[in-house]
Structure formats: structure tokens, C-alpha cells
């Protein structure tokens, strides 16, 4: 009894805080490893405001409309001819800018309208691919326009808003989506 008490008295009653750092480090490393900074990316789209009646594109001059139809078998019909998704971007670019002043392509970029129509049975993947190509066509044209204006980096979202507006004013993105058909199986 007596012996024991004496050893207890000798002990210092301070807790060693040296290992605290290690414990904290362990926790820190755990959080570092588990943290996944999820970067959400996607195609930004501005939907038109809701209205009961659909815009009538038949009234427009036919040469200014670039119609893209996607059926339930994920096949493309561009200006009433079958086409492949891989050609879509080049065709859309040629249509909008019309470099050789052809009679059947858009009069000028500001008048060009892309009309996209799909079926309720179209795969979402195909739809996104088509939308991506059309958006890509505009992005490429904006890029060229920016370079023509003397911006070396080309078009990007870091440009001042006035510049972006000026570029988009010259080549506005008009993409009209019609109510889909319901031929295919959902």
C-alpha cells in the first residue's frame, strides 16, 4: 500500500500532448482523402419561356432554317436528308456563316435559325450529342469571330461581357426546339 502511493505521488500529472498532433494529422488525412471536390460540368441551355402556341417556323424563309430531326431509332435527318452526327458540326457552321454565299444557306448569321426536333423515343445520349455538336458549331464560330476581332485567346467566358455580347450579337445562337413527336416507344 505504502509503496504504491509513493510511486503515484512521484508521477507527474500532466498529460503528454505530443501525440495530439498525430491524432489531428490522422483526422486531417482522413478528411483530405474522403473529400472529393465534385466539379459539375454540363451543357448550358436557356429554355424559352412557356407559351401555349408553338412558334411557327414555316413562315420563315426556307433557306434560313436548318432543321435537324432525330427519330426514335436515333437517326438524323438534316434538311430532309439523312446525316451522321459527326458531320453535323461542319454542316451547321457552313450553314450559319455561308462563306461561299450559296443560295440555299443562311442569308446572314443573324437570320440563321436551327430547328431541332426529336421523338419521345429518342435516346437522351443522342439528343445531348446532337445538341453538343450544334452548340459546338456556334462556339467555333464565336471563336473565329473573336480571333478576327484581335482577341488571341479566342472566345471564352472570361472575356468582358461587352465583348461577348458584341460577338453574340453578330452570330446569335437561335436554336428552336419543337414539341417532340410521339412515334417511338418510350
Amino acid at each position, binding site marked *: 500500500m505504502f509503496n504504491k502511493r509513493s510511486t503515484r505521488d512521484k508521477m507527474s500529472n500532466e498529460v503528454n*500532448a*505530443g501525440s*495530439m*498532433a498525430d*491524432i*489531428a*494529422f490522422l*483526422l*486531417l488525412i482522413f*478528411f*483530405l482523402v*474522403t*473529400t472529393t471536390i465534385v*466539379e*459539375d*460540368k*454540363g*451543357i*448550358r*441551355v*436557356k*429554355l*424559352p*419561356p*412557356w407559351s401555349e402556341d408553338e412558334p411557327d417556323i414555316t413562315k420563315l424563309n426556307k433557306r434560313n432554317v436548318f432543321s435537324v430531326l432525330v427519330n*426514335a431509332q436515333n437517326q438524323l435527318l438534316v434538311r430532309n436528308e439523312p446525316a451522321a452526327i459527326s458531320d453535323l458540326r461542319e454542316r451547321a457552321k457552313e450553314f450559319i456563316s455561308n462563306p461561299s454565299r450559296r443560295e440555299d444557306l443562311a442569308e446572314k448569321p443573324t437570320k440563321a435559325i436551327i430547328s431541332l426536333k*426529336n*421523338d*419521345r*423515343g*429518342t*435516346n*437522351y*445520349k443522342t*439528343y*445531348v*450529342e446532337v*445538341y*453538343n455538336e450544334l*452548340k*459546338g458549331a456556334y*462556339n467555333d464560330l464565336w471563336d473565329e469571330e473573336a480571333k478576327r476581332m484581335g482577341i488571341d485567346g479566342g472566345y471564352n*467566358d472570361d472575356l468582358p461581357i461587352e465583348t461577348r455580347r458584341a460577338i453574340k450579337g453578330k452570330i446569335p445562337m437561335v436554336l428552336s426546339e419543337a*414539341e*417532340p413527336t*410521339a412515334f*417511338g*416507344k*418510350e
Partner: protein
Amino acid sequence: MSKFQKKRGKSNPEVSTASLPDIIFMLLFFFMMVTVMRDAEMKLMINTPSASELVKLSEKNLVNYLYIGKPVKKFQETYGTSPRLQLGDKFSTIADIPLFLEKHKIKVPEAKRGRITSSLKVDGEVTMGIVQDVKTQLRKSGQLIVNYSAKPRNE
């Protein structure tokens, strides 16, 4: 001169490590605050398509997420295998969208409400029918900025 030397000789050359835990804890708390735990449990199988013309979503608290896809195995008995909509962490119907948007909207400061984006996380194999219905409902609810979530494509 001699005064300085004396002092130096007496001082303990060891650096105190007592404050080290505090520094580490500070870092720890920083990471704990920054870490955003995934708030919604995924009840759907979603494999977003890949695309090249991607835009980063800027402010996280201005984004609400709508998921469309087939229910995962666990829920297939109760909900079937046809594509469903998930809002937050529960299965929903198209009619629930306006309330969902409104619930998100009131959490956002008024000045920023015009920049609220709806991120559509849709499985690539889903057909456009349900996506179209969701889009129509979003348009009717006045939520016009939409982001089709996609993976970057390596070209």
C-alpha cells in the same frame, strides 16, 4: 556584448511543439467545413453522356439537381425499371417539380434568384419523353436556365 551571450547560453534551444496540434486542428476544421457531404442518396442509376462543349457550374448553392434514370436494383421491386425522376432524395413525379424549385428558391438570397440553374443529371439510355416532360414543367415554372450534366469527352 557579454550580456547577450549570457542570455543566449541560458535559453532553451528547443522549439515548443505545444501549439502544433492547434495548427493542425485549424486545418482540420477548415477541411471539415469545406467538405460537402453528398446530400442526396442516389436511388437511380445515372451514367451521364459525354460531351465536349461543357461549361462549369459556378456557384453551388444556386444549383438544384434533378435526376432521371432507372431505379437501382434495390428499388426495382417497388418502383419498376422504367425511368423515374428523383428530386432531393426521394422519387417524385413531374407535378412535384414546382414545389421543389420553390423550396430551393427560398434558401437563395433574393438578388441571386435570377441565376438559379437546374442541373439535369440524366442517364444516357433514358428516352426523351420523360426529359421533355420535365423540361416543359421547368418552363412552366419559369426555371429557364438549365444545365445538361455531362462528362468531359477526351478527343
